[in-house]
């Protein structure tokens, strides 16, 4: 008359496999070998400095792209000065070196103080002041200069967010990774690394 329903029912007859004695119930099955190997792997990662970031791979920017050669001298023959063509961050107390001696020129128009930082879980974006450039993936030279390109890890001031540690201390600095090309857009967009 009616066809049997093609749905899965809880099978009361079958007993589950993997019988363990009473003293092993309530305990996770992960053996200590696995735990040890996980610990070792984590230690190795920490040592190598490899972190999980939202933008893992970026195109490496060559020197010709980031630094423009500025010719100086009476006959414009000397070519030891360079001008940064990408967005950069200089600290609060930044003072230029005497123009005769400065090798790297960071134009004021390309200096930024704030970044638009998105919290990945809350999906909310805040405009937070930048505290510093932590690492530029292309070159350590760019890190010292404060050049911000796509994939750079920067430190931002998150006291606005009101985060507190377990011990009760207020968190005021966190890392964020830049996700756009700031020199094209005119603003720095970043994702907070939680």
């Amino acid at each position, binding site marked *: 008359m009616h066809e049997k329903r093609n749905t899965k029912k809880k099978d009361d007859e079958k*007993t589950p496999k*993997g*019988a*363990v*004695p*009473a*003293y092993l*119930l*309530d305990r996770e099955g992960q053996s200590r070998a696995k735990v040890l190997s996980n610990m070792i792997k984590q230690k190795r990662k920490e040592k190598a400095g490899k972190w999980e970031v939202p933008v893992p791979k970026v195109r490496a920017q060559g020197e010709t792209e980031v630094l423009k050669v500025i010719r100086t001298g009476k006959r414009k023959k000397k070519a030891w000065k360079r001008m940064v063509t990408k967005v950069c961050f200089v600290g609060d107390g930044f003072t230029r070196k005497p123009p005769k001696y400065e090798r790297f020129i960071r134009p004021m128009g390309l200096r930024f103080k704030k970044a638009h930082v998105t919290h990945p879980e809350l999906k909310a974006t805040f405009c937070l002041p930048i505290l510093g450039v932590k690492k530029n993936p292309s070159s350590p030279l760019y890190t010292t200069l404060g050049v911000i390109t796509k994939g750079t890890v920067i430190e931002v001031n998150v006291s606005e967010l009101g985060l507190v540690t377990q011990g009760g201390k207020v968190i005021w600095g966190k890392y964020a990774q830049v996700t756009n090309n700031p020199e094209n857009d005119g603003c720095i967009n970043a994702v907070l690394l939680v």
Partner: protein
Amino acid sequence: MSPDEDVQRLLIQFRDEAGESLGSPFDVPVTITPDKLQLVCNALLQKDEPVPLAFFVHDAEIVVSLEKTLAGQSVETEKVLDIIYQPQAVFRVRAVTRCTSSLEGHTEAVISVAFSPTGKYLASGSGDTTVRFWDLSTETPQFTAKGHRHWVLSIAWSPDGKKLASGCKNSQIFLWDPATGNQIGRVLAGHSKWITCLCWEPLHINPECRYLASASKDGSVRIWDTLMGRCDKILTSHTQSVTCVKWGGDGLIYSSSQDRTIKVWRSQDGVLCRTLQGHAHWVNTMALSTDYVLRTGAFEPAEATINPQDLRGSLAELKDKAQQRYDQVRGQEPERLVSGSDDFTLFLWRPAEDKKPLERMTGHQALINQVLFSPDTRIIASASFDKSIKLWDGRTGKYLTSLRGHVSAVYQIAWSADSRLLVSGSSDSTLKVWDAKTKKLAIDLPGHADEVYATDWSPDGQRVASGGKDKCLRIWRR
């Protein structure tokens, strides 16, 4: 010129373990050996047959001669030296060396194994929901008891050996008759979560073996009347799973739980007497000093025969015998309880007297899975997931030694009836027999294909049975 005259002589006084002195002090040469001391002591004890004795001076055992034991210490010839004598078991259990049979039959891992109190029957519970009885004389399967609908987590023999209770993961308890393999009475259902432990009432309190205590994950301990097939009392107070329950010989029931406490109940009316607190994590296991004698009831391992027999005699006779044996093992002091926990420590308690522990025994580096008193209550053995077994003094809780040899967690241990040997089963699929006197490995028993979940030594000392994840039960003999 007899050489004895040149040897230094000492005044000694024999004392037993409780401190009572035997005879009066007398003079012996320093080079006296344990054999001669034994002759003298037996003469003073005036027993019918000479009893083997071990002698201890200043907590060190006299092995070769009194002189050697006192070698490091300064001896005062003016004072009387106390020598403590300890009677050893008259019979001697021989170490098991070979696997005589590997019994297949279970279709899932063997989770629990138990010999009956006389050593006549062997029962095993498994993940395939059956309890199997095995014939020990031919080492073949005897009965398969079907009825459970989930893994059989724990089994317990009644002290007269006539009934077997088994608890399963579906929170049901069945009773079986070992002679026929049939179910006795009704299914005992009442718990809401799985049964973790079962314990019968001791024989010397009730020779009919009527009451059974069961501990469950739902946090309650139920006392069942097996004759009527119903629940007599429910002891609720624990807030988390009860991991172990023990029915003591003095009318008290002890239950340990994951809520870090041990509760002491009066078995007569089910009233909570005491709560023992101290552990920092789940209390996994407990052992009473009189465990072995409560398990064997009226059966005396010294009188064991090659073919184990059922206990004979009227109920009154059995009760008297059991009472006698219990009094002998217990002595003058109240029962001692040792508990092992996930916080890597053990506590030694005197639960009938005091809420505070006698001693906290630390040293393990991982959780403790099982603790056991030796049958003569002198040594406590603790098996842990840190691959070692530690031996502690049974009266004071002082650390004695560590037995290392396993390469993975040690799951269960069992003592031989004369307290000289200890067998341990581990997750590295081997069993090891350790000598308690020399504190070393005696025999290594490989053979299982996978983890060994359950181990038991028969009370008559002849066989060791072990079962594990490889679904087969192995019997080991000399």
